[in-house]
C-alpha cells in the first residue's frame, strides 16, 4: 500500500485560497488509510466550513475514482468543467497524473505521501517496507529488506548501534498537527535478518560479504 498522511488544513486552505469552486477527488486505489468517496465528502464539507469561517467561501463537490494514477480512465471518471481547481486525496502519483491529464486547471495535494508499507497488526501503525530500489535482495535476506528497514540501508549490518535488537535511531510519530505523540525504537533490520536466516538454517547467507548498493540504477525519474 501507499501510505499517506493528511496535510494540515491551514496548508490546504492556503493552497486553495485563490479559488472559489473546488472538486475534491478521492482515490479507491492503494492509498492507505482509505481516501475514497466518504473521505472526499468529509474534506469537501470541512473546506467549505473552514473557508466560510475565514470569510471567503469555497464551494466544494466530491467524487472518487478507481485509481488516480490511471491515465486512461481519468478522462472518463473526472469532469472538471465548472471547477477552477481540484484537490486530490490520492498519493503523489495520483496528484501528478491528474495534473498531466487535466493541464488546464491545477490539482493540489490534500495528503503527504510518506512511504510504501503495510499496517502493523498489533499496533495498528503503518510502517515502511519497500523503497523500490529496483534490485530486490529479499531472497537472500530472510524476506527482510535491509535497504528499507535498516535506517542506514546497510548491506553488511548490523552496525554498532544495534542494542538489544533495536536500532539507534528514534522514530517520532506525529499527529495531524505535526505534534509528536510517540517515540518508537525500530527493530534492527540486521538483527531480524540474522534471527530469520538462523531459523531457516541459512546463516551462511548472513555471513556473505555483500557488494555496495548500485545507486546508479536508483536515479530518479526511472522508466521501464
Amino acid at each position, binding site marked *: 500500500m501507499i501510505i499517506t498522511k493528511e496535510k494540515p488544513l491551514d496548508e490546504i486552505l492556503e493552497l486553495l485560497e485563490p479559488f472559489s469552486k473546488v472538486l475534491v477527488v478521492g482515490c479507491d486505489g492503494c492509498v492507505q488509510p482509505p481516501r475514497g468517496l466518504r473521505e472526499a465528502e468529509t474534506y469537501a464539507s470541512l473546506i467549505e466550513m473552514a473557508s466560510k469561517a475565514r470569510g471567503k467561501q469555497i464551494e466544494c463537490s466530491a467524487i472518487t475514482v478507481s485509481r488516480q494514477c490511471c491515465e486512461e480512465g481519468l478522462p472518463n471518471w473526472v469532469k472538471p468543467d465548472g471547477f477552477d481547481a481540484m484537490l486530490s486525496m490520492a498519493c503523489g502519483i495520483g496528484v501528478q497524473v491528474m495534473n498531466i491529464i487535466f493541464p488546464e486547471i491545477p490539482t493540489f495535494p490534500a495528503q503527504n505521501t510518506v512511504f510504501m508499507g503495510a499496517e502493523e497488526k498489533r499496533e495498528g501503525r503503518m510502517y515502511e517496507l519497500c523503497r523500490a530500489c529496483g534490485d530486490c535482495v529479499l531472497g537472500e535476506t530472510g524476506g527482510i529488506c535491509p535497504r528499507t528497514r535498516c*535506517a*542506514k*540501508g*546497510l*548491506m*553488511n*549490518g*548490523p*552496525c*554498532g*548501534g*544495534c*542494542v*538489544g*535488537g533495536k536500532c*539507534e*535511531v*528514534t522514530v517520532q510519530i506525529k499527529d495531524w498537527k505535526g505534534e509528536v505523540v510517540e517515540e518508537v525504537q525500530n527493530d534492527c533490520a*540486521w*538483527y531480524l535478518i*540474522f534471527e530469520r536466516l538462523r531459523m531457516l538454517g541459512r*546463516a551462511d547467507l*548472513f*555471513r*556473505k*560479504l555483500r*557488494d*555496495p*548498493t548500485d*545507486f546508479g540504477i536508483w536515479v530518479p525519474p526511472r522508466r521501464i
Partner: protein
Amino acid sequence: MAERKAFSELMKKIEAGEFVYTGELEPHRSIDISDVVSWAKTLKETGRIVAANVTDNPRSDSAISSLVASYLIQKETGLEMIYQLRTADRNRLALISDILGAAALGLKNILALTGDHTKTGTTPSAKPVFDLDGTNLIRLVRSLVDEGKDLWGNEIHGPRPELNVGGAGNPGMEPLEAEVFKLERKAEAGADFFQTQVVFDAEVARRFLRAIEHIGVPTLIGIFPPRTYAQAEFFDKFVPGVSVPREFMEKFAKLKELPKEKRKEKINEFNVDYFVSFIKEIKKEKACAGCHIMAVGYPDVIGPIIEGVEK
C-alpha cells in the same frame, strides 16, 4: 587477497609481536585544535602510545575535518595518527578523494567506520549518505592500496597509496555470533586490524577475543577509564552495547563521596588498578594485539596504566 603489508608504525609493531597501545583524540567544531595537539603531545610523551585515533564527526556531532586534524596533529607532534573515516557523511567519490588525500598527506592508518546515524547528532536534518558501509569502505581502501584501482575498476595514476586499514568491532553485541560473522566479513574485505568499542568487563572481552580468534585479525580492545562517576554511568546507561560491571559502579560510587582533595587521587588509583588487571587478563588472549585507550581529556592515568601492565 594480496598479502597484508605493514606501512604504519602501528602495523609494524603488531607484526613484530609487540603489545600495542593506541589513544584517542577528539577535535571539536572549531578551527583551533591546539588542545588536541597538546593532548597528543601527552600521549607521545608516554613513549608507549604508538598511534592515536582522530574521530570523524563522533556521535554525528559536526566537527573539524578529521583528515585535516589528523594531518596537522601528526605534523605537529610526530605521533602517528589513525584517521577515522565514516561513510555516514560521504559518498564513494568523496571517500576515494579523502583516502587518496590521506595517503598524499603522509597518513598511514585509516579506521573505516559506518558511523552513527546523522539523526542522532547535532544536525538531524542532514541527508544521511551511507553510500557504502564500513565493511565496503575497508574493501575500497584495500583495493586502492593493493590494486591501484577502486572497486569499480577506475585506476589511480602514479604510485599507490600506502595505508593500513582497520575496522571496528563490538564485544558487547548480542548475539555475539552475528558480530563474529560481521567481523569475518570485515576480514574478508581486507581489514589489517580491529579496534573495539569500549569494554569494562574482562569476561566480555575474553569471550569476544576467543570467538574471533579464528579470524586472525589483530585486535585492540577499547577501554575508557572514567574520570568521574557520571562518565561511568553514561557508559553504563547510554552507550550502545556497553555495560559496566556492578562492582565497578559500586566502588566508583563510594569514591565520589570522598572529599574533593582526596577524590581525584583515589579515582586515579582505582582506574589504574582496575585497568591494569583488566589489560593483564586480556593480554593472555591470542587475538588480543593491544589496547585502545580512549581516556579523552584524562592524561593522568594513561602512563601509570601502561607502566602497571608492562613492568
